[in-house]
């Protein structure tokens, strides 16, 4: 589903962040990206839907990520960002959840019906007309997830999805994610959440993947629990 070869990236105001990353993700697979802060996990993930474009080769579902393929790539890759407040920017939850579908030129009525169904499935229906800023952290996270899931991506990337969530919220999110059949890439510091939601993990260190294997094995090897 995703192939990354020798990916390198450098921010203009800092040194190299990715130093030649090779990675593969199969359809339906769930992989955790582990590693300390600043190790390059988020920078790496931002290359998978072309938000950042570094040196090397990134291919998603057979499409090479390049400027002219971004629209097609972004239909395949859904990205739930760490900050839900950044992700939710329209005046009501319903409008925000519909946003991605409307960008895909889905008719408004159909988009609204599908968004309401999605909100029902995530128990957010009562909040459909609320301002997203006035939701709790868990509700914001679910609303952000709803907007991405509605686009039926083939790969779902979540950047630190457990941030700001309480333990029941984390458990609920894990159950919700395990119900999704698409490939998932989860950036997290929460080792328990990683074990509940992924089967494989890769460990980032200074812009490189230094280890990969079954999630529990990687967590134990790096004493990451």
């Amino acid at each position, binding site marked *: 589903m995703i192939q990354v070869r020798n990916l390198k990236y450098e921010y203009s105001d800092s040194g190299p962040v990715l130093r030649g990353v090779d990675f593969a993700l199969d359809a339906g697979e769930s992989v955790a990206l582990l590693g300390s802060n600043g190790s390059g996990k988020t920078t790496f993930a931002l290359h998978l839907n072309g938000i950042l474009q570094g040196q090397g080769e990134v291919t998603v579902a057979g499409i090479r990520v390049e400027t002219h393929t971004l629209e097609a790539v972004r239909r395949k890759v859904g990205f739930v960002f760490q900050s839900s407040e950044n992700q939710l920017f329209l005046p009501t939850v319903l409008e925000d959840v519909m*946003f991605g579908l409307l960008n895909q030129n889905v008719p408004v009525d159909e988009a609204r019906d599908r968004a309401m169904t999605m909100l029902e499935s995530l128990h957010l229906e009562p909040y459909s007309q609320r301002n997203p800023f006035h939701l709790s952290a868990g509700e914001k996270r679910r609303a952000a997830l709803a907007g991405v899931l509605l686009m039926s991506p083939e790969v779902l990337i979540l950047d630190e999805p457990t941030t700001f969530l309480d333990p029941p919220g984390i458990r609920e999110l894990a159950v919700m994610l395990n119900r999704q059949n698409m490939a998932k890439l989860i950036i997290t510091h929460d080792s328990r959440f990683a074990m509940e939601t992924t089967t494989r993990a890769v460990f980032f260190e200074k812009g490189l993947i230094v280890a990969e294997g079954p999630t529990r094995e990687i967590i134990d090897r790096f004493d990451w629990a």
Partner: protein
Amino acid sequence: MQLDPRCSLLLLLGYLIALASITPGHNLLLALMCLLPIALLLFSPVNKADLLAQAAYVLPFSFAIAAVALLRGNTAEAVFFLLRSYISILAVLIVTKLVSTLELLRAMERLGAPRFLIIVSEFLMRYLEVLRKEADSMRLAALCRGAAQSKLIAASSLGMLFVRSLERSTGIHNAMLARGFNGRLPRLFPMHWRLSDSLALCVGWAGIAALRWTI
């Protein structure tokens, strides 16, 4: 009956033009024109005292013009300017209370206002609250570390607030791109201009024009 936001906006525009066209000395006309927003205020489900107070914020600014009349020794003209600006702002405030800001922005867009301006206004409106939270959290952090003067803190952390705003706007833009944003915000709820809107606009404009140009 709920008017289409475009109709409300056009009625307001007509009223403001008529009001602005009244020249000093036509005190009876000004008084009659004042009755329109005051009547609307009385019969609207809004906090009347708040609106009357908020409209007074314009007075220090319009006083600059009134001061010229005062310097010429024309007190009546100065009062005329102050009253006209106060009533103009009151009319605008009443409409913004009766029609949501978002609907007004969308009505402006449908009436031909530049789309870029509308989008910027919409985002500004939505993220003011987020920026306020950022500013509050920075102020609280400073107070927790022993800072005493909250005004001084606000001033010194203004630069940092801009940096945070930039970071946040980058984050928002990335999130929008990730969901296929192509430079156009989708419009979800189309406006419906009904016969009643046409009627209200014709009657409203005719009434305003009759009041303004027949007295």
